[in-house]
């Protein structure tokens, strides 16, 4: 067993800040209020910082370390199907797809939400429809993300949520 530093403070802060702000805007804050809009701006800034960090950040934070790959994803599915317990230090291939999916969904949410506030789109229906559809999609994705994290934690016997808090992942195989 070994302890590997995988998530830098920026990645962790981004992750949990996004959790908080998304939950706030989706569940707790009044949709028509100013607070909702300001939280939306904050989320947009967070996403921008994360994307820049994806190019200049630490090793496992870079997009280059978790490229979207169908063959790698099916490799992970094969591991699941055959009960193999090969570990990934950074993001897993399936996890990578979820990250790109969530980033894209939240970009769509932010952009459509911003359009709703502009004079140009005042009284226009589609930005609101896009906004709500993207939010629903993001919520389904988040449910699947949480279920997948629990599933992988059990399958590989390592506490993945804790790694996102402490930054350290416990690896069972020594490599």
């Amino acid at each position, binding site marked *: 067993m070994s302890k590997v530093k995988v998530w830098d403070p920026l990645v962790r802060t981004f992750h949990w800040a996004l959790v908080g702000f998304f939950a706030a805007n989706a569940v707790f804050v009044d949709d028509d209020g100013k607070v909702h809009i300001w939280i939306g701006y904050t989320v947009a800034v967070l996403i921008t910082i994360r994307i820049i960090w994806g190019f200049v950040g630490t090793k496992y934070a870079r997009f280059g370390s978790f490229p979207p790959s*169908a063959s790698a994803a*099916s490799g992970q*599915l*094969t*591991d*699941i*199907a*055959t*009960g*193999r*317990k*090969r*570990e990934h230090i950074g993001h897993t291939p399936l996890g990578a797809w979820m990250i790109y999916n969530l980033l894209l969904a939240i970009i769509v949410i932010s952009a459509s939400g911003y359009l709703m506030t502009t004079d140009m789109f005042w009284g226009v229906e589609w930005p609101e429809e896009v906004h709500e559809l993207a939010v*629903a*999609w993001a919520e*389904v994705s988040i*449910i*699947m993300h949480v279920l997948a994290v629990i599933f992988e934690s059990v399958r590989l016997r390592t506490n993945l949520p804790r790694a996102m808090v402490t930054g350290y992942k416990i690896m069972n*195989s020594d490599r």
Partner: protein
Amino acid sequence: MIPDLSTSNRLPYSLMLLILVQVLCAFFFASDIIADYQEVDRSGANRFYLSLEAIATLSIFAAIIFETKYILELLRRKAHLERSMSVASAAMNDVILAHFQSWELTPSETDVANFMVKGLGISEIAQMRGSAEGTIKSHLNSIYRKSGAHNRGEVLSLIIDSLMDRPESRL
């Protein structure tokens, strides 16, 4: 001429996409039905149609589970066919898998047995599976127990026996 089987070796990406769409639909319908049920007493909406919708949604969830199991089964079959495209090795693989199924091996044991049949040692199998050698040894023990064989050679004999048409078996 040996037909090219590479197409049958490909992953069903369209099926995966279908599952993804179904997951999305299932969640939308489920949340819709939950919302409708909460309103049913106030608005007097038709409970009959609501039940029909619930059954339809449940069947989508059932289909998702069924398709996921099918894909995992396919991946298990494909796991040991990575490079072989020939009819003979695909057929051989099926014969081997049929034996493993008749012995009721778990997915993990089937994987270990496959590596074993191909001549890999315990440490190699452990490395391929990301497990400890002790884990592989206990998998091997249950393979021997379930198949009734005592060692690697006997497991291979059981498989090869079924490929040979022995005269006694016809009597």
